[in-house]
């Protein structure tokens, strides 16, 4: 299980992140100030750190200096959205920079990207008898290989990574068809539904890949 340290002094936000990351299968440790985070890092190892910048006692930038030699990827989570702050955040050695307010799916996606960059995610995803080799783009159901188009493949990966989470239509478009987000036909397009049908048919997911009325789809385990 991958271990994530969350250093965030706003209890509601911290609880929110912990709640969602735990559901996504990470082991979370939440701390509320920079000093205790530094203490914690001395004795424990983590795979990723989510770090707020405005922290009591030791702020995020200062803590970053401390973390840098440890080779632990850091994602800054902050309300500071100015370009200067972003640049400062990224040049200080952080892997990514997430500005409040953010959405949970986005946080999960960013975490995934960073972990993949550090080769900490497994390249083989499984769902029931389906295995997905994200490195080589191979999908197997049982022992038989199933051929998927690139978009079908991406969509499948998104669903498996966000098991038991309702993915809203707009969110799915954002993740799989980012090029369509700003086009006018988004509301009328049937692309998503077509791909869902194809996935259900090819992988026999009729009962698992559920339609949530007026919202989107969910892959239920």
């Amino acid at each position, binding site marked *: 299980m991958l271990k994530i340290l969350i250093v965030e*002094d*706003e*209890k*509601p*936000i911290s*609880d*929110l992140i912990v*709640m*969602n990351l735990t*559901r996504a299968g990470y082991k979370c440790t939440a701390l*509320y*100030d920079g000093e205790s985070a530094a203490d914690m890092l001395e004795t424990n190892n983590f795979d990723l750190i989510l770090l707020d910048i*405005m922290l*009591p006692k030791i702020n995020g930038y200062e803590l970053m200096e401390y973390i840098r030699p440890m080779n632990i990827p850091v994602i800054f989570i902050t*309300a*500071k*959205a100015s370009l200067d702050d972003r640049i400062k955040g990224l040049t200080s050695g952080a892997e990514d920079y997430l500005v*409040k*307010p*953010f*959405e*949970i*799916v986005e946080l999960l996606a960013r975490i995934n990207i960073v972990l993949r960059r550090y080769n900490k995610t497994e390249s083989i995803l499984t769902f029931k008898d389906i295995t997905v080799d994200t490195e080589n783009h191979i999908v197997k159901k049982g022992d038989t290989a199933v051929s998927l188009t690139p978009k079908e493949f991406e969509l499948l990966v998104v669903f498996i990574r966000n098991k*038991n*989470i*309702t*993915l*809203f239509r707009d969110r799915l478009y954002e993740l799989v068809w980012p090029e369509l987000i700003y086009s006018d036909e988004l509301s009328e397009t049937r692309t998503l539904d077509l791909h869902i049908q194809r996935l259900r048919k090819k992988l026999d997911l009729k009962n698992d890949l559920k339609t949530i009325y007026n*919202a989107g789809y*969910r892959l239920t385990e």
Partner: protein
Amino acid sequence: MKFRYKVLIINMLLLSAVLLAVGYVILKRSYDLALDTQIENAVLENNLAEASIEYSLLSVINSPRYNLDRELDSISGQVYAGMMSDTSDLIILYSGNQVFSSEENIIIPDDLILQVDNNIKNYIITEEDGRLFIYIASFCKIDKGILNIITRRDITGLKRFVKKSINDYRSLSLIILTSATLIIYIISYFLTRPLEKLNDVTDAFARGSYSKRSSIKGHDEVALLSDKFNQMADSVETHIDELNDMIKRRDQFVADFTHEIKTPMTAIIGYADTMRSTDLDEDQQLMALNYIFSEGKRLEDMSMKLFDLIYLKSNTIDKKPISAVSFGNDIVNSVDPILSSDDISLKYEFEQGIITGDRELLKTVFINLIDNARKASSKGSRVIFKGDKKGEFYCFTVQDFGVGIEEKDLSRICDEFYMVDKSRSRKKGGAGLGLSLASLILNRHDADMKIESTPNVGTTFKISFKLYEEDNGKNMNE
């Protein structure tokens, strides 16, 4: 055109005109004088010639036989050679006929003899071939005829003298004009230099260097103008600084505001999103809903206080007399329930006194302060709220025995969104606006707020109002 050039040109024109007029008068006078001298000399010469000739003629006439024409010629010759200067000529007419001429081809001007009368001499000045002559004619009767003794004197020297005078004067004028130009230029340069300096400073000022000041010293008009300019610059700079300060504060406010609003928004959106996307168990659902509610409340509280802040900044306050005792008791009634729910006791005591202000706004202030005291205190602690008359002031005191405020935070606690301990303040529902609102309200009431605090000992807020004048305190607002 530059001012100094204007001064220069006007002065030069004036000086030239004066030099011209003076020159004309002087030259004219000296010419006239020289001419008079010449005429006088010529007349004297003529008189001398006349006297000599007449004297010589007397002896001739008295002799029995004589040839007047011949005698005249010889006498004239003697006179001419003996007593006349080289530049003069002598012509003798007898009864209109020329009997002697020291030089040939002398043409006697026509008017010369016609006007000659008995014992009166006549003169005419003529110019022949660039030479100036003065002709003098005298008249006397000899025998039966009329003898005209005409002397011609060359006064071309006069012309040369005039010419030389003019030349001299011209050179002199040129020297005067040149040196005057130089002097006037230098003078006007130094006179207008301060103006130019002031101009440079004004220019720099206009282009945004608001700290530029003119350094001209003295008591003349330019120095006065410079002083006035500096005064103006001071006030402009102050205003611009104030404006910049205001813009900076506003930017800071907006930045703080967006920052503050982001946390509850992230929580609300995040929990709502989690709830709609996943199946949470009952505990988690309750926690999420609780957070959505409390963060929503925080946003509401923040927006209310912000509204009050904006309202206060742009509106006048309707001040009415307030009895301190009833006001204090009113507040005690409002805060008592929250304090007792936290197991904190409230000690209160109010002296009689009347202050003025907007009762509702002032209530907000003290409820806020007491609520802050509650947040700083731990269970079982107490809060003191009292009012005393001190001279012409009425002083309210709110004292707690809680966590206290560190000195570095004291100066900033009234800033908008400033929180000494963010997580602690949030937990107790603060938005960082209470004290800034309170200090603004007090400021609008001309009330003075003093804060004394020692960490881990407690904090005391002292707020003093000017007492309401007793004699017109009849329409008291109870």
